[in-house]
């Protein structure tokens, strides 16, 4: 995932703060978004992700700091002249206009002739898969079609940055998954920087080159999806993205970037510095993802380390089964996931098992 590293910077935040009265909505945002990147702002509601998006669009001013877009300071630059366009959460399709009028809305000042503009609108509609829908009234469209109109309307202006405010949240699950793939394809096709706001971690992981995880007005971690998933830099990020087991640990020694710990139920482990994000003064715990733990069925062996376990709960998901297992005769319970491949039985509650695990999969939070 080195896609973003050699790209030029499109957007830069320098210590951006935003206050609504006493409420501190953005608390010192720093970071860069690269040109051509699919970037996501991910976080729970109220974390400031939409506010940050709106400050890029110019709908919200900032209280202090600097936002640069394409090397231009955006202070005092109103929304209508910024090189950004937005796909609104509600799509904001103009109800008194046809599909073609909606898509061509931003072309009023365009010096091209009427026929050229109409051709551009047609081309845009074809790109989002709405060929022949130009004359339809806005209210005749389904949710997915409205979203495509909103996309076409924004992209026709060839913005440097396309802002997407939870564009998929109003669609049903099937449609959402379909549109995720379509958006990725579209982004590759047009090569424009996309910034997506979402509260859906799965959506962010699927679609993004890089993700900024936000909590309480600040960016907690800015990284590519894999790093975010495998090496979250805090317990909070780890909890927000996917499922993470936390096992209490004590730190035994710390020499030259290596940390030796005693994890309850797992025993002594030595961790690399990449597995140990900067300390935050919390009780030390190690995190491990369910899929990094493996149940050993009778007769199976492993080159990894293993520990005894007792199955406490079995949750069957069709393609997967989740087991909640007590580790090493302790009260430490972890959840692990096993693929339901043919010939592999579903084990019962109360079964004594062995659990294989790998020290490289651990992350230490302290």
């Amino acid at each position, binding site marked *: 995932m080195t896609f973003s590293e050699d790209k030029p910077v499109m957007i830069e935040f320098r210590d951006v703060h935003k206050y609504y009265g006493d409420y501190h909505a953005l608390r010192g945002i720093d970071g860069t978004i690269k040109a051509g990147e699919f970037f996501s702002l991910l976080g729970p509601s109220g974390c400031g992700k939409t506010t940050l998006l709106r400050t890029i669009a*110019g709908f919200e001013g900032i209280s202090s700091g600097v936002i640069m877009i394409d090397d231009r300071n955006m202070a005092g630059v109103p929304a*209508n*002249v910024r090189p950004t366009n*937005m796909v609104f959460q509600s799509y904001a399709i*103009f109800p008194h206009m046809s599909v073609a009028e909606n898509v061509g*809305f931003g072309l009023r000042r365009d010096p091209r002739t009427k026929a050229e503009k109409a051709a551009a609108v047609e081309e845009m509609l074809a790109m989002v898969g709405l060929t022949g829908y130009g004359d339809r009234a806005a209210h005749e469209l389904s949710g997915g079609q409205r979203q495509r109109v909103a996309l076409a309307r*924004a992209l026709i202006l060839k913005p440097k940055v396309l802002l997407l405010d939870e564009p998929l949240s109003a669609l049903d699950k099937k449609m959402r998954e379909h549109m995720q793939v379509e958006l990725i394809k579209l982004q590759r096709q047009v090569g424009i920087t996309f910034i997506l706001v979402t509260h859906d971690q799965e959506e962010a992981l699927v679609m993004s080159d890089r993700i900024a995880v936000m909590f309480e007005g600040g960016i907690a971690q800015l990284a590519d999806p894999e790093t975010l998933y495998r090496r979250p830099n805090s317990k909070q990020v780890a909890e927000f993205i996917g499922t993470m087991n936390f096992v209490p640990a004590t730190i035994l020694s710390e020499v030259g970037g290596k940390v030796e710990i005693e994890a309850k139920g797992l025993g002594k482990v030595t961790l690399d510095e990449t597995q140990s994000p900067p300390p935050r003064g919390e009780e030390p715990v190690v995190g491990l993802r369910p899929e990094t733990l493996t149940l050993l069925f009778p007769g199976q062996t492993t080159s990894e380390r293993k520990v005894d376990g007792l199955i406490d709960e079995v949750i069957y998901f069709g393609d997967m089964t989740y087991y909640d297992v007590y580790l090493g005769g302790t009260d430490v319970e972890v959840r692990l996931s096993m693929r339901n491949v043919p010939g592999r039985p579903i084990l019962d509650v109360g079964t004594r098992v062995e659990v294989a695990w790998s020290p490289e999969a651990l992350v230490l939070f302290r």
Partner: protein
Amino acid sequence: MAQSQSSEAKTGYMLVAPPLLYAVLLLAAPLATVLIYSVLTGENGAVSLPMTTENFTTVWTGRVYQAIMARSLYVSMLVTLTTVLLAYPIAYFVSFHVRPERKALWLFLITIPFWTSYIIRVALWRTILGYNGIIDSTLIGLGVTSEPLNILSYGVVSIIITLAHAYAPFAVLPIFVSLEKVDRALLEAGQDLGESRWTTFLRVTLPLSMPGVIAAVLIVFIPTVGDYVTPELIGGGKVPMIANMIEIEMLKKRDQAMGSAIAVTAMSIVAIVSILFVLLNKRFIGGTK
């Protein structure tokens, strides 16, 4: 089941009977009377056969009638224009710039003119606009003018001022409602797509609020065409409108047939104008939903 349905229907009829009776006796019957009178021959406060279209011929071709009809339309159109132009900014302000929890209070304040009877308000406007009235004495006191303006004597102007003030709340409310329905994200979308606040207003807000504007136009236009009190008391009878003409025919000339014919003509004109506006409204509503 059928039993209970029919008894329910009976109860329903019983319940609507009083207002129905009221409507038939006080609205439908007089209306029918006016329609019938308009095609009869009137003389000395009575109507008689034979049926004739002569009344209508007189009303439609008579210079005086035409002039007064035209003036009624002209005055009420000016009143409507003035009222809607004044009401729109008020409605816009309350909808867009008043905090949500204060909007009810603002709307309540807009109804304050209704706390006083219309006749009293007309009398107050006479005091304000009249010879050496409040405006005159203020302007003279400030040295802006040395002679009283006596705006009241301008007839049409003072009628417009009085009626616009009276009907403003009726115009503010429908415009306010239609502005409230405008999704605020659409305004951001307009700006996002390169339009300034003003051009966004012209391309998005104004067309979306047109149903409210048209409702306001109808609400103001329909009653002002037939207004009787204002031209009588403010215009001093110098600028009679249709209603005053009907009064003259009915009560002074005692020709109820002619009075009815004028009334029917006025109703028809108002109906035609209203239908045109309703069709216009449909066009705007057609795009919304």
